């Protein structure tokens, strides 16, 4: 899929009659990584959920490749091009890692079992394909969810706290994968309290300062 620029225009968000941010605007070119930072409760998750399309924005819009996402033609293309992995990893405890991934991928594009096995190996879960996920640790369950990043071909990734419960080696591998995705022309928007300063070309949006 062709990478396209994302323009956020005067976005506003309100939760329980409390204004989290107003008139937020920024541009993201294809190939950029944006880290959304800020103290707890500053609206990081809300911003990501608005961008993903889960939460309606009070005002403003997102332009993707020139078309508006919330109110116009860009909607369908945005739906097909963005991948959202939230706080809750969407991993069913009673299904195996392979069943979970095959269903989650089928929601956009079905993938073959060999691809799933390869992706699980990439996230260090080789041999856990047929194990029910409730027997996996929190970090391993998060890795199952993150295996989608190796499976699905979405150019835009929206990741809410992807590093939660992941060990050091896993974090390094994920950082590398994010950089590789950006180098391929993909765009990544993520929140984390973990410092990404050592990575090249990561922009930071501090919601604590915007508000």
């Amino acid at each position, binding site marked *: 899929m062709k990478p396209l620029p994302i323009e956020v225009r005067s976005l506003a968000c309100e939760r329980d009659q409390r204004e989290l941010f107003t008139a937020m605007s920024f541009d993201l070119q294809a190939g950029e990584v944006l880290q959304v930072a800020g103290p707890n409760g500053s609206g990081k998750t809300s911003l990501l*959920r608005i961008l*993903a*399309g*889960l*939460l*309606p924005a009070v005002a403003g819009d997102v332009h993707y490749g020139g078309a508006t996402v919330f109110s116009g033609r860009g909607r*369908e293309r945005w*739906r*097909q091009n963005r991948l*959202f992995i*939230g*706080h*809750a*990893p*969407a*991993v*069913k*405890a*009673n*299904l195996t890692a392979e*069943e979970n991934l*095959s*269903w*989650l991928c*089928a*929601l*956009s594009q*079905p993938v073959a079992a060999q691809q799933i096995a390869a992706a699980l190996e990439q996230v260090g879960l080789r041999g856990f394909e047929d194990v*029910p996920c409730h027997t996996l640790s929190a970090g391993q369950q998060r890795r199952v969810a993150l295996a989608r990043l190796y499976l699905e071909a979405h150019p835009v990734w929206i990741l809410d706290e992807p590093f939660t419960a992941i060990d050091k080696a896993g974090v390094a591998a994920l950082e590398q994968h994010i950089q590789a995705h950006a180098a391929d022309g993909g765009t990544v928007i993520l929140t984390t309290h973990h410092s990404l300063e050592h990575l090249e070309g990561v922009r930071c949006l501090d919601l604590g300062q915007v508000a």
Partner: protein
Amino acid sequence: MRRIVWLLFCREWRLAWRRPGDLLNPLVFFAIVISLFPLAVGPEPGMLRTMAPGVIWVAALLATLLSLDGLFRSDYEDGSLEQWVLSPHPLALMVLVKVLHHWLICGLAMVVLAPLFGLMLALPASVLPVLCLSLLLGTPVLSLLGAVGAALTVGLKGGGVLLALLILPLYIPVLILGTGAIDASLQGMPVTGYALWLGCLAVLSLSLAPIAIAAGLRIGVSE
């Protein structure tokens, strides 16, 4: 489109069979409620026969309501629902598959068991087909309407009571028509009118409820 429906059905099927307890709960409830009545009111066949339509229908209604409370809860809590909402596939179609799957393992099982309980409550054999027909047409309506309430209360803690308050008034027409059909059959009167009305409600809820359920879930997920 057909593929996603099939995959979703397989997923629901697997999830249901890996927790057989949840699968049996509504049926056990249905069986217990009905079998307690003869013990409580006495074994006099005439009285049981008069009560049978109401008892079976109320038990089916409450069993459905009980099982619906958790219909979307686990998908909501583990984030699966977010992914459904974000998917390019129509959410209304996916929830329709989920609710129909729920009906298959809860509602249809009650339809199959009903003749047995009908006999236990001294219903004549000639009335049993009508009993099954009324449940066959009525229980999908119960599942679909209940799912609207389940979707609206998905994000609420202790939404069970609220679900009952929201949905019970909507169940009343189904209850009246369902028991009415069996009563009419007991008195040797035609039941076509009742069956047509129930069918009408079934078609109406099949076509409109998924849209309402999808809208409810979207609200729940955005909270």
